[in-house]
């Protein structure tokens, strides 16, 4: 699995600073690139993504062609109060990945608990080599 070029980000890769700011979309909301882990197991791949503030209803996870994309909409909004100290801002999450052909697209499962998404990407059973009979005219 590799990451697809993130078409939403305006800033170009290679010109990134250590703490890139979020992308301001035209709709007025902020969009973040969530941190992820990917590791291999005997069954396939497991992907974790941190999506604080996203409920299962607010998460849209889809596979189209070879692209797995996740979009999480935060259900916790900014409080109407004076800010004393601010380290993070609230926004939605977007990230997409290109799946290899090894992944069994039909059997991808996902769970979202306490703001952490876990996606299981099982390895597809290898196609048996098929012998092609060769005949002569």
């Amino acid at each position, binding site marked *: 699995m590799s990451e697809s070029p993130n078409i939403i980000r305006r800033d170009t890769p290679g010109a990134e600073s*250590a703490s890139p700011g979020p992308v301001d979309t035209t709709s007025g909301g902020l969009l973040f690139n969530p941190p*992820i882990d990917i590791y291999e197991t005997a069954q396939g791949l497991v992907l974790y993504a941190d999506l604080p503030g996203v409920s299962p209803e607010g998460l849209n996870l889809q596979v189209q062609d070879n692209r797995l994309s996740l979009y999480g909409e935060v259900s916790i909004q900014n409080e109407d109060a004076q800010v004393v*100290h601010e380290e993070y801002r609230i926004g939605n999450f977007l990230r997409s990945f290109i799946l290899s052909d090894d992944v069994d697209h039909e059997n991808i499962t996902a769970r979202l608990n306490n703001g952490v998404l876990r996606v299981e990407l099982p390895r597809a059973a290898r196609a048996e080599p098929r012998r092609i009979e060769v005949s002569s005219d």
Partner: protein
Amino acid sequence: MPVFRWGQSWDPLRDLEREVDRLLQGMNFSLQGRSTRQYPQINLLDKGDHYLLTAEIPGVAMEDLELTAANGVLTIKGVRKPPAEARDDSFRRQERFQGAWQRNLQLPDRIDEEGMKAEYTLGVLRVTLPRSAGTVARSIPVTEGPE
């Protein structure tokens, strides 16, 4: 576009150059997440009679979360454990924070420590910190002392 360039690029070095480019770009990529900053990220809001502290701590078990307040300093600490099934060498990408963490926050006012409340939903911790009633200035009468 290559990040790394030899002054004069001749054929035997082209592969190496490409490889170094790939590594540099890979490093850049790992900095795109929000994991390189202090963990966890904290906001503090003034709601009049109380403060509201919020922190993004996704995926922490309640029993691994500890919250204390003493002498105007609020301390939150916890542990983020990696999945038991994941071996160190099986990771293809690792951007999420892992391990023990602690944050100490100096509170702007005295807090009624008895009235503190905390809740954890969708990976976000919200702590209500009521202002202590004792913050009203008390006048101290001055009497004439012995000469």
